[in-house]
């Protein structure tokens, strides 16, 4: 689904990704871990097409095509979803309105007809029930006055509605208490499907207690320095990032 090869990028004069390679197949869950400043969030933003990051080398192939040529909205319509670490507030814009516009933008791209307000509400209520969310959510401004947990849950609702092929969840666990973490993780688990890939970007291994990854990668200074299975995350938790970094240098 996603092939990243020797990707290099910078923001301003600072080089952040320095030759990163990663391969993600449909149905897989990957966890990207690493210390602060290692480039985890940058990777998520570059895949989504944030224009502040300049790609200076390497390739990214998505579903067999060149991803880097596409505008952010085209990537989204092609099925790439980014769950933001800090979802922005958009005052005055109804949550349901954005969600409906997003769903219809994607449907239009796929050559399907737009769904009307009734169909939309029915679908949204279904997904919210599945995620254990209060339907009142829909009538509030986008992330306006939401708690940290509500914002993250709203991201998962959007993901459920948009049914992406590739979902990248950036620090979805940050700022959540244990109950909120559990419910967000449950939401993600219900969205695991054989034709969908999920990339979890996380600082701590505790999220992985609830969402079990197939692959774990450690990112440091803009490169993946170690990959393994679920046990790598546990080992990291025990020995810290310095251990991998030293091992990688050796």
């Amino acid at each position: 689904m996603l092939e990243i090869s020797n990707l290099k990028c910078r923001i301003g004069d600072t080089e952040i990704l320095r030759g990163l390679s990663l391969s993600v197949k449909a149905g897989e869950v990957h966890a990207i871990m690493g210390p602060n400043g290692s480039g985890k969030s940058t990777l998520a933003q570059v895949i989504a097409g944030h224009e502040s990051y300049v790609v200076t080398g390497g390739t990214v192939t998505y579903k067999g095509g060149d991803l880097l040529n596409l505008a952010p909205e085209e990537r989204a319509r092609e099925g790439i979803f980014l769950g933001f670490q800090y979802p922005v507030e958009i005052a005055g814009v109804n949550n349901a309105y954005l969600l409906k516009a997003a769903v219809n933008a994607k449907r239009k791209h796929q050559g399907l007809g737009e769904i009307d307000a009734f169909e939309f509400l029915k679908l949204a209520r279904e997904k919210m029930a599945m995620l254990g969310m209060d339907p009142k959510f829909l009538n509030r401004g986008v992330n306006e006055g939401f708690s940290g947990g509500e914002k993250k849950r709203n991201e998962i609702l959007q993901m459920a509605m948009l049914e992406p092929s590739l979902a990248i969840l950036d620090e979805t666990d940050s700022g959540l208490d244990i109950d909120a973490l559990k419910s967000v993780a449950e939401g993600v688990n219900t969205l695991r499907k054989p034709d969908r890939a999920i990339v979890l970007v996380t600082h701590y291994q505790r999220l992985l207690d609830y969402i079990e990854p197939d692959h774990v990668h450690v990112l440091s200074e803009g490169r993946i320095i170690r990959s393994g299975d679920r046990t790598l995350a546990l080992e990291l938790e025990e020995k810290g990032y310095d251990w991998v970094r030293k091992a990688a240098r050796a």
Partner: protein
Amino acid sequence: MSSENLESLVNRRYEHGFVTDIATESLPPGLNEGVVRAISKRKDEPEFMLEWRLQAYRQWLEMIEPKWAHVHYPPIKFNEISYYAAPKSDDDRPKSLAEVDPKLLETYEKLGIPLHERAKLAGVAVDAVFDSVSVATTFKGKLADAGVIFCSFSEAVREHPELVRKYLGSVVPRRDNFYAALNSAVFSDGSFVYIPKGVRCPMELSTYFRINAANTGQFERTLIIADEGSHVSYLEGCTAPMRDENQLHAAVVELVALEGAEIKYSTVQNWYPGDENGVGGIYNFVTKRGDCRGDNSKISWTQVETGSAITWKYPSCLLRGENSVGEFYSVAVANNMQQADTGTKMIHIGANTRSTIVSKGISAGKAQNAYRGLVKVMPQAHGARNHTQCDSLLIGKECGAHTFPYMEIKNPSARIEHEATTSKISADQLFYCRQRGLSEEDAVNMIVNGFCKDVFKQLPMEFAVEAQALLNVSLEGAVG
């Protein structure tokens, strides 16, 4: 030109019979008593109207141009303006929509303007416009049955002089301000509405107006009187882009609401704003005021302002009657080089009067957008209440938003609330929306419409939809 020359000019035209020729000739530039007389004569006005104009002209001569607004423009040369521009003859107009600038038609399309209105708006010769005549006739019958008078101002001066005489200038006196005095002297035409006692006007006075009131000229004059217990909703202007050779527009609108009457006045203003460099746009200097003269009366202003190079306008309410209510809902958009200084005045005079102000200012490009509002509570206005909500939205880095609230409270029982916010469409918001599959333009439109929704919901339904589309067109290319 001296007044003698002008007199002879007027007289010479008489030789050709004054009906047709008068309608097709413009007066040469310049302003003096002779010009005022000539305008009045052409309109076949009664003596009192001419006297009224002349007094206004003499008062205007003694006044000076106001400079306090937060707008900048080169000095206006009042003697280079022609004060009577005749309507274009049918020979100069396009014969069908096929002859109209395709760009204009494209804009109509985007705005969702009904097909049968497009030809009229594009200035196609009247004969070529089917539908509109029969539609107008139907409306006219319906209004006449209800006893509603709705006609051009010139017609009202001739047909209903007693009403004009009683109410004209009773809300905006001739010498109220420089531009109001100028308008009073030379006003070209406009609309007149009278709703009799206890009558609820059977339709929005909008559809009719849009089809019939093209070419009202640069000095428009509107007078609406709602007699006791009556109700009327009036919509002025249209979303279609309006061009005019006259750069200066100085209109006066007077509303009178008697006991228990209600007037809802909505404006959608889309005058030509000039090009990206601000060249050629309209100056829109308007005086609009409503007088809640009777107890329990209500006047509500709703405006969507997207056009003009410079807008200078403060629809106001005099809350004289006890328990009377004034409302002002406004969306003002300024893009490129546009300048807007707009707001309202709520003057609380009667006891238990209430007012609400909701102002939404949007600035983009290099535009400057100012809200200027006065809330005044007079000593006898016990229990007066006002709530003001004043929000600004900035798009891009080079524009400006300014808020100038004035409050003069002379009664200790008054309750006044003022809330203000300034926000910006951020790159993060746009990226968030694009990541969800929306184009940048759709994202901007969505955010802007969300910002304006409190005002849009005050507009008559079909216009709310058009106003929304208009905003989207006005802000095209504002980001990026």
